[in-house]
């Protein structure tokens, strides 16, 4: 088999492997699969039998036009960009398969194949994808190496007879390429399995407190279901200036009415916000002080609540409308199923001097109506008065109660069930609880001493991701805290909950931070693809695979879950391929034998050695000018008064091979190596 034919067949196999990845894709119609497969096989057959007939250029011109048309129709009527691109890729692939002449054609084919893999990964698929991906990756490495040799082959004079596949790629080379492929596969698999798991719990440090609730639109102290600590991602908050700044509380809902066990928002009538272009105005004309902007990437978490920071002035985002209830909580028109991206312009809500001095607040009627009613036991009222009364100003009273709760109680997620009302249980008996207990107790105690307050839920700032410069917020960062009314209709934030213990191991956290950053970039710029979607597909495929036995099913599900991250895998594989190519070049460049010894590449091999010598001499202060001929250069060094026999002989070897077409024997190679060493020692670094 001739080398050229072998290379073509290999490219066909690669195309087949990558195309089968595409077939596994749900959005890829079977008709397309059949047509693509058929055409690949026809082309394969043509190459195999060295069939002389080829479709005419006119045919291809027509086909290209047709496919541009189909692409447009796909876009216009099917409306699916991905499907349209996939169809077009298939056409490009078939076109290239029928036009494989020079090595650049092959390389273009590989690029198309890679794009196919990427397109198929973009919407995830199944076990079949994993298989075809592994095959494709191995074949692509093969293909790239073979193409490199093909380029060498193309530089040979056309008159020489074509060489066989075996003579160009001897057994040892074949084995090393195989090893390379397998070697590339292992790190890939490692990344493949680990990447999706880092940061989701595998590497998180074990903590005593394993139970915490996520965000929900209900706050019910009565129901004590065991809620697992949920580390899944909720949102990423990117400060516009990239500085960490003061950690923001992400405010969600507020609650006004407490019935003894649960909180309720009685002011939930919503009204749409005014909108200008993409901007929704929340508090027009009140932008004073330190304005900051934060971009929030909110994952779908089964709530329509839009989280805000500080005192928001405006929100920019691609939503059709935005609703606000009376306490100021923002809602999307419907529960989002995709990641929501929006930018908040806000000012920090900080206490002013006046706030700290005020001793009595005249509450407006609606505040008095909703935020002062405290139906709690006299014991709590007495406790509140006992703590607050010694202080004259409102602010000091609030701080005193906050301090009392922070210092006198233990943060715990384990609250034993009891028959007593939850707040009394918390304040006087167990003296332990989590944020909702702290916040509820504080609100009730404030109200008992006549200070208007409300309970607010949302998220703590989570962890700062240093490489990506954003805050990463998980479900476990859900929190409840307190807002207190101050004159001017402003609500200031107080948090009676003592700060939670830090989590995780520092080093692994740093690793996890990098991983999350990569994932964020990848999701954001390549896939726009959320965990939730992946879970949905995972569930779907799992149910489809239901008839498999439980064990196999589990294993496949595990594979699938990883395959959803195949996009990352593709990236990793591309990296591995690049790395191996670089290694290959370095190996060749270092001139360790087989490459230069091959007769056909003496010309280049000699040049490589000669250039190495030039680089060495240039480093030692003898650069060769471009216009100098080899012997002029030798003479110019001679004038420098150095013994240069070795340079002379190496130059002669180079000239013979480069311009005389002399074939390098292994003796020549050895001699060249020795000469090089001699030159190196002669021209010691100054």
């Amino acid at each position, binding site marked *: 088999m001739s080398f050229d034919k072998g290379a073509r067949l290999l490219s066909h196999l690669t195309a087949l492997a990558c195309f089968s990845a595409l077939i596994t894709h749900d959005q890829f119609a079977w008709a397309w699969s059949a047509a693509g497969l058929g055409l690949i096989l026809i082309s394969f057959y043509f190459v195999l039998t060295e069939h002389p007939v080829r479709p005419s250029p006119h045919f291809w011109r027509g086909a290209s036009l047709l496919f541009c048309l189909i692409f447009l129709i796909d876009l216009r009527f099917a409306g699916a960009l991905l499907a349209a691109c996939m169809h077009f890729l298939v056409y490009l692939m078939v076109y290239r398969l029928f036009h494989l002449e020079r090595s650049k054609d092959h390389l273009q084919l590989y690029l198309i194949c890679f794009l196919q893999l990427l397109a198929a990964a973009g919407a995830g698929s199944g076990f079949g994808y994993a298989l075809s991906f592994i095959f494709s990756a191995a074949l692509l490495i093969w293909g790239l190496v073979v193409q490199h040799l093909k380029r060498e082959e193309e530089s040979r004079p056309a008159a020489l007879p074509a060489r066989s596949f075996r003579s160009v790629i001897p057994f040892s080379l074949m084995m090393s390429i195989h090893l390379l492929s397998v070697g590339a596969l292992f790190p890939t698999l490692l990344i493949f399995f680990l990447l999706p798991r880092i940061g989701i719990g595998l590497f998180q440090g074990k903590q005593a407190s394993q139970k915490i609730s996520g965000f929900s639109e209900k706050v019910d102290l009565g129901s004590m279901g065991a809620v697992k600590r949920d580390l899944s991602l909720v949102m990423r908050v990117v400060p516009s200036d990239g500085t960490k700044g003061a950690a923001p509380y992400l405010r969600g809902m507020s609650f006004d009415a407490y019935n003894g066990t649960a909180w309720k928002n009685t002011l939930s009538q919503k009204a749409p916000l005014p909108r200008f272009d993409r901007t929704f105005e929340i508090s027009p004309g009140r932008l004073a002080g330190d304005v900051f902007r934060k971009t929030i990437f909110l994952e779908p978490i089964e709530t329509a609540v839009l989280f805000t920071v500080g005192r928001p002035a405006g929100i920019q985002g691609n939503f059709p409308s935005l609703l606000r209830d009376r306490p100021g909580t923002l809602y999307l028109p419907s529960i989002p199923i995709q990641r929501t991206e929006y930018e908040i312009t806000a000012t920090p809500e900080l206490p002013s001097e006046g706030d700290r001095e005020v001793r009595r607040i005249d509450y407006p009627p609606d505040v008095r109506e909703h935020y002062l009613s405290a139906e709690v036991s006299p014991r709590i009222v007495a406790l509140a008065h006992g703590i607050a009364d010694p202080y004259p100003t409102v602010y000091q009273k609030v701080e005193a109660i906050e301090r009392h709760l922070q210092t006198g109680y233990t943060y715990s997620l384990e609250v034993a069930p009891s028959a007593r009302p939850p707040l009394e249980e918390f304040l006087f008996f167990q003296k332990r609880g989590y944020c909702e207990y702290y916040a509820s107790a504080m609100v009730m105690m404030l109200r008992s001493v006549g200070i208007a307050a409300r309970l607010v839920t949302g998220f703590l700032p989570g962890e700062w991701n240093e490489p990506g410069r954003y805050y990463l917020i998980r479900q476990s960062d859900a929190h409840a805290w307190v807002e207190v009314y101050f004159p001017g209709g402003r609500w200031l934030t107080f948090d009676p909950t003592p700060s939670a213990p830090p989590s995780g191991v520092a080093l692994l956290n740093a690793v996890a931070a990098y991983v999350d950053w990569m994932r964020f970039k990848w999701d954001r710029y390549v896939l726009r693809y959320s965990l939730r979607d992946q879970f949905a597909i995972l569930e779907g495929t799992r149910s489809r695979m239901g008839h498999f036995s439980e064990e196999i099913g589990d294993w496949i599900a595990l594979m699938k879950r990883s395959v959803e991250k195949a996009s990352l895998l593709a990236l990793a594989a591309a990296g591995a391929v690049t790395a191996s190519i670089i290694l290959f070049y370095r190996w060749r460049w270092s001139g360790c034998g087989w490459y230069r010894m091959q007769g056909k590449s003496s010309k280049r091999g000699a040049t490589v050695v000669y250039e190495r010598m030039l680089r060495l001499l240039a480093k030692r202060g003898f650069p060769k000018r*471009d*216009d*100098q001929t080899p012997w002029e250069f030798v003479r110019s060094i001679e004038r420098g008064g150095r013994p240069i026999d070795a340079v002379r002989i190496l130059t002669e070897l180079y000239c013979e091979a*480069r*311009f005389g077409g002399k074939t390098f024997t292994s003796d020549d190679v050895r001699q060249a190596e020795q000469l090089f060493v001699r030159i190196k020692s002669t021209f010691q670094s100054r």
Partner: protein
Amino acid sequence: MESREQIQRLRQNIEQAIKGKPEAVKMAVVTLLSRGHLLIEDVPGVGKTTLAASLARSIECTFKRIQFTSDLLPSDILGVPIFDPKKNAFEFRPGPIFTHILLADEINRTTPKTQSALLEAMNDGHVTVENQTYSLPDPFMVIATQNPSDHQGTYPLPESQLDRFTMRIRLGYPDAADEKAILLKAAASSGIVKPVLTRDEVLSLQKEVEQVTLEESLIDYLLAIVQATRRLRDLSMGVSTRGALFLQRAARALAFVEGRAYCLPDDIKRLAPLVFSHRILLKGASPGQALHGADAAMMEILGTIPVPL
């Protein structure tokens, strides 16, 4: 290697006659082997004619010499048809050009008209007189000598004539030691050299030269030089394609003379000033200045063209 020996013999033979000019001798041999014509230019009395004559006499073939003067006519070179009363017909009597080696001594002392009589002979190897074409013997080589153009009583060679010479060399004054040797031996040696190569040997050497490898990148290098001469700033004429062809042939011959079966960039760079500088014409210079200006321009060009690695 036989051919190598032959060349060595030829060179040594010529060097007996003309001392201290190995480079000029080598170039003369290169011209012979590349089937070209040689123009030797220098002031009178430095050995131009000696070089030409010794080269010619070193080869066992016919050699004629024409002393070019201002009253020389084309028919004096080419020959004339003469009426033969016995046969009652015109018969062509060949001129001195019908020879293997023609020494055109002081070629620029004659008129351009007579100079041009050589054009056809040098290019095509035949001459046409009265619509009748006569072939010249093979090998055919013209060795012309000329005094620098600004000397008294000279007619500068027309461009078309210059273009037909493969290379133009200069001899220059010999250095003191060589000059002393010349004076010492002047009495002893009669200056007559014996032939060391036969005509057939020369022809086979010329054939072997054509087998010398010239790598493709060297052709690119050569063409880059040619093109650079055409882009020269104060230039009225650049190097012709014939010039490029001549350099290619000369490079092969030089490689051969140096005992190589392949050309090097060195060959081309070394020959380029010799082969090209009489082909480029600079604006606004007198003929004498122009020649020196062209040399300088060639050196400048060679300093800018990168040599292929």
